[in-house]
């Protein structure tokens, strides 16, 4: 039971709780905020997974960008919706069943994975204890090489896509759009 484990479980708890809040909270503002908590926790988990760069991006893009956008959306939809966000009982049942099925399926997979690990089929990994000073195989520079190398084509495509999206979003919100 080292210190990493001690930090690990609270982070998981935050992530999970935040997600639950995002899913269940009546008030959309609270939902958005708890989603933010979940996103932050996710970034923490990325650190545990030695994906520091991804963690940073997660913080910047998600927490810093997307969450704000969502909050905007909530802001100008809230005054109309008021408390009318009460989901219908049917959709709740449906949602419950669907999410249970999902949980069952993926949980089962995870369970199997755990089983296989118990059989010693674990990939070799660097012990969390002695990260410090190690040159991670996934340093930002390494990721940059990958982006500019094998992932170049997708990278350019995404770049184009993002531009298009930007223009499209602008077009959508122009005053005389209607």
């Amino acid at each position: 039971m080292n210190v990493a484990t001690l930090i690990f479980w609270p982070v998981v708890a935050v992530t999970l709780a935040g997600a639950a809040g995002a899913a269940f909270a009546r008030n959309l503002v609270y939902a958005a905020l708890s989603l933010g908590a979940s996103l932050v926790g996710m970034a923490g988990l990325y650190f545990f997974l030695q994906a520091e760069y991804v963690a940073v991006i997660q913080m910047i893009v998600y927490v810093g960008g997307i969450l704000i956008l969502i909050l905007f959306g909530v802001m100008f939809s809230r005054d109309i919706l008021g408390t009318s966000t009460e989901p219908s009982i049917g959709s709740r049942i449906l949602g419950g069943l669907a999410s249970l099925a999902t949980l069952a399926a993926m949980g089962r997979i995870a369970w199997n994975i755990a089983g296989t690990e118990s059989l010693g089929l674990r990939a070799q990994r660097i012990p969390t204890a002695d990260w410090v000073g190690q040159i991670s195989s996934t340093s930002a520079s390494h990721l940059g090489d990958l982006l500019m190398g094998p992932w170049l084509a997708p990278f350019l495509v995404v770049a184009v896509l993002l531009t298009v999206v930007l223009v499209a979003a602008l077009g959508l919100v122009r005053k005389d759009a209607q």
Partner: protein
Amino acid sequence: MIDLVLAGPDRLAPYLLLAAALFSLGVFACVTRRNAVGYLMGIELMLNAANLNMVAYGRFRTELLAGHAQVATLFVIALAAAEAAVALALVYAIFRNIRDVDLDKIRSLNGE
């Protein structure tokens, strides 16, 4: 083997279980939310679950390819951002047109 599941950050299983939980929560949100923005949150949750899976697998299963997994994750994040932007723009446009973003009321494709 429960100990493997509940083992600390050095095991794969906890991440996977967490991702499963996040994903199913996202599904629940998508189904129950009548509000476009709520719907969007559900989607974001699922995307995050997927990301977590990818990074975790990259780390624990394919050590040498961990970087690739993370690059893919970066792409997902970028696309999620784009998607969020467009979705919000749409929400805004719809809101301007029908003063509402209740998805149940947006059914012109349903022929009603």
